[in-house]
């Protein structure tokens, strides 16, 4: 099909183009109160085409894109191409070159199930096996996806990625008797897991932890103090904090003047004793080695010990800034700190286990969120708490951030296990 589309484009005089072929197969099973509710299978093959036209003596580049959402006839594709050519003449940007390819390449990082739904059901039962009368999974959804994506452009890019992932959305729930707080007799938490391989031990560990967390949520007390407190963030909340922090330094943001920070500027004015942040963007797997423009991905250090080391982003905006495109990457590595988790947790603190959603606004210099579950350590003992929010200045928090030596890894980040932020407001 790609060759057919290329032939039509060339016949219409289009010599700059990009075609993406997306072939997806998904298997899913849905469980309600630990009983099977539904099974699903999806098969789809679609194409995305972008047509580029050099205009005004190569000063401008027009572009327009369209999908082929089903198997279209030649005349249907020709009509789409004609419409895109007309659109590209009116939708223009300063000229940039398409990514130059290095020929045909295939990147693979996948695993296959012989009988996907039966395997999915086994995964669900790893979760259910850990349940007991009070603790169970009121909702569980298991997804297995296989993707083959091929990207071709008019400058020699012909890259393919073959990937697969197993994902689980789990709602661990605890039903108990809590006469002093009837609205918290039945409690739940939200958990989402991505597994790059079928790692049954890891799945079982996650299931156990999810149920242990929800039991803590049941036992948690409403917090009874206001004021300032050290807060420990971890896992995806820390990943989101770092993601929001560096989002200001994409080529697009820089070109749009959303930031005026220059390479070499201090981003984190760390105080003595605090950990200076070093953040690296890198490909997330052996399969994810090129971005949607065909830029081959290599790791790039964005923050080096709190100093802006590089911008990052796509081909178009990199060329506008006269810089090398790094490509779009989501996998972040934050270098570990100097203290052990034990040292980090010596002083009184609140360790956040579950938030409604962390709020990080680098423009308004804000960090905060509503806490669903946390551990409170008062200097002597630790107990679970809920029903409060924390907030503070992002800049001030980063000045005194301390990171743990221990690290944790997920499909889209590698981070210290814990990050301690000082003196945030608790309400």
């Amino acid at each position, binding site marked *: 099909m790609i060759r057919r589309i290329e032939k039509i484009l060339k016949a219409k005089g289009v010599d700059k183009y990009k075609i993406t072929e997306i072939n997806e197969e*998904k298997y*899913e*099973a849905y*469980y*309600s*109160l*630990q*009983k*099977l*509710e*539904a*099974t*699903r299978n999806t*098969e*789809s*093959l*679609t194409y995305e085409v972008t047509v580029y036209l050099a205009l005004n003596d190569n000063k401008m580049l027009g572009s327009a*894109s*369209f999908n082929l*959402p*089903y*198997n279209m006839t030649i005349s249907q594709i020709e009509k789409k191409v004609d419409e895109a050519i007309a*659109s*590209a003449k*009116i*939708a*223009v*940007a*300063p000229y940039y070159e398409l990514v130059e390819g290095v020929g045909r390449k295939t990147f693979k990082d996948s695993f296959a199930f012989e009988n996907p*739904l*039966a395997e999915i*059901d086994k995964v669900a*039962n790893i979760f259910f096996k850990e349940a007991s009368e009070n603790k169970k999974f*009121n909702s569980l959804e298991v997804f297995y996806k296989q993707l083959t994506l091929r990207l071709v452009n008019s400058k020699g890019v012909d890259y393919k990625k073959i990937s697969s992932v197993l994902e689980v*959305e789990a*709602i661990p*729930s605890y*039903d108990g008797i809590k006469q002093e707080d009837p*609205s*918290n007799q039945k409690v*739940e938490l*939200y958990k*989402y897991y991505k597994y790059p391989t079928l790692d049954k031990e890891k799945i079982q560990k996650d299931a156990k932890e999810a149920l242990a967390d929800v039991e803590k949520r049941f036992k948690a007390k409403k917090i009874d103090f206001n004021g300032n407190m050290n807060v420990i963030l971890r896992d995806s909340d820390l990943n989101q904090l770092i993601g929001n922090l560096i989002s200001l330094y994409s080529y697009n943001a820089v*070109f*749009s*003047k*959303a930031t*005026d920070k220059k390479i070499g500027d201090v981003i984190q004015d760390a105080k003595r004793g605090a950990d200076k942040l070093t953040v690296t963007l890198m490909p997330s797997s052996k399969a994810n080695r090129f971005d949607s423009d065909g830029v081959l991905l290599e790791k790039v250090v964005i923050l080096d010990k709190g100093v802006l080391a590089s911008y990052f982003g796509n081909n178009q905006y990199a060329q506008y800034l006269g810089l090398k495109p790094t490509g779009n990457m989501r996998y972040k590595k934050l270098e570990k700190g100097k203290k052990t988790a034990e040292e980090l947790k010596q002083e009184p603190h609140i360790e956040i286990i579950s938030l*409604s959603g962390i*709020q990080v*606004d680098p423009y*308004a210099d804000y960090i905060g969120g*509503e806490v*669903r579950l946390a551990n409170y350590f008062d200097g002597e003992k630790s107990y679970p708490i*809920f*029903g409060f*929010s*924390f907030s503070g*200045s992002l800049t001030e928090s980063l000045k005194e951030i301390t990171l743990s030596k221990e690290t944790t890894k997920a499909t889209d980040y590698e981070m210290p296990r814990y990050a301690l932020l000082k003196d945030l*407001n608790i309400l």
Partner: protein
Amino acid sequence: MQKSFSKYLKSKKPVMASLLERLKDKYEHVGILGTDTLTTVCYVDYHSSNVGEDSNDCGFVIKVVHDGIYSEYATNELTMRRLDKIEEKIDELVKANMKTKKVGLKLAEEEKLTKSFSRKNKGKYLNKEEIITALKETVDLFKQEEKIVHAGARFMVEEISKVYLSKNKDLEQYYFFPSAFIYSVAADQGKTQMFYNSVDDISMSKVLKELPKKVKETASVARELLVAENPEPGIYDVITAPSITGLIAHEAFGHGVEMDQFVKDRALGKEYIDKPVASDLVSMRDGAASCFAIASYFFDDDGVLAGDTLVIDKGILKTGISDVNAASMLGTKPTGNGRRQAYDHKTYTRMTNTFFEPGKDKLKDMIKSIEDGYLIDVTNNGMEDPKNWQIQCTATIGREIKNGKLTGKVVSPVIMSGYVIDLLKSISAVSDDFKVNSGGSCGKGYKEWVRVSDGGPYLKAKVKIG
């Protein structure tokens, strides 16, 4: 643009009918949904413009109920030649070696209905060149605004065609929804801020005509945000503008009454039916037929006609909203709230247009009644907790009110949180204004995104800002 019901879907209806004929006696229930959604997007900013089409929600999903569960096969290739293969795929799904006990789903018999619905653009259809020209003119207006270093405008037309076929139903719908969005970036003394605004209507021309009128406000608020401070955490009397009123309706009780959560014992709401949950000034509705906005379809993805559900009546929780599966499990009537992100996603109970009904108070009197608080506006995001009724709503801007007057000072961002019932019971005034905003997308948890609207009047309430 398609401008009318999808020719592609029309051409596929005989294939859908043949497939239904093959399957209908084999399974307890068979429903086939065909979708063809075309989104045309035009974008202009200070430096560039582009035009694109997104038609990824174009395909078919075949649902069969069997042995106490349902199975679905979704594909974007439905042809007469593939029918044997598709039937084989469905049989494989049904026979999959699933050991887990089943929920015992049994769908109620559908009512007989054959109907076709259409809602087209009101007025002239504009071509892409006319749209790009109008967007450029709008973006150029920002260049006259002080401290605005970048701006952009995006115009989007969604054209949705759907067919639902089952033993008793043959439904077709086409609806058209134009909307636009502008943003500006303000910068001064090393600080940067961004603000956005949106317009929607049933007419393409009207959307583009209204857009330039939003430029001054969009630039002005971006400049105001440059000097905004974070609010001092505390409990405040606030007035929520319709955007935030809608966010509260959506997060506080919209998610809380999605009845697929009742089935999974995930919502406290099911224990509060016919009980007070809010101040008696509060009435709340949800439904594709409740008002005209982005989620105003004619039938849902289960083939159930659009509904208008009175969720809260003068402070009393009356009922929830549901899709066909949840209604069957609970023994209730579906309310037309079964929605999929796309043909290749499952149906869940989802909100549509959710809002509080207007009251009788005047906004100026409500402002006068506040000694120390904020007028809170512009939705940023929110998060639900139907099981334990915690809520988090983030507003972009808070305007300080002292001694009954707006002082001109602004704070940002404003994160409200607390216990849903405390918040709803604290509502002490409801204005006679009413506005619904179609700019939103809603997820179930952190996935399954669908377009929704929400809104209502101005509300006076007591909230925790942290």
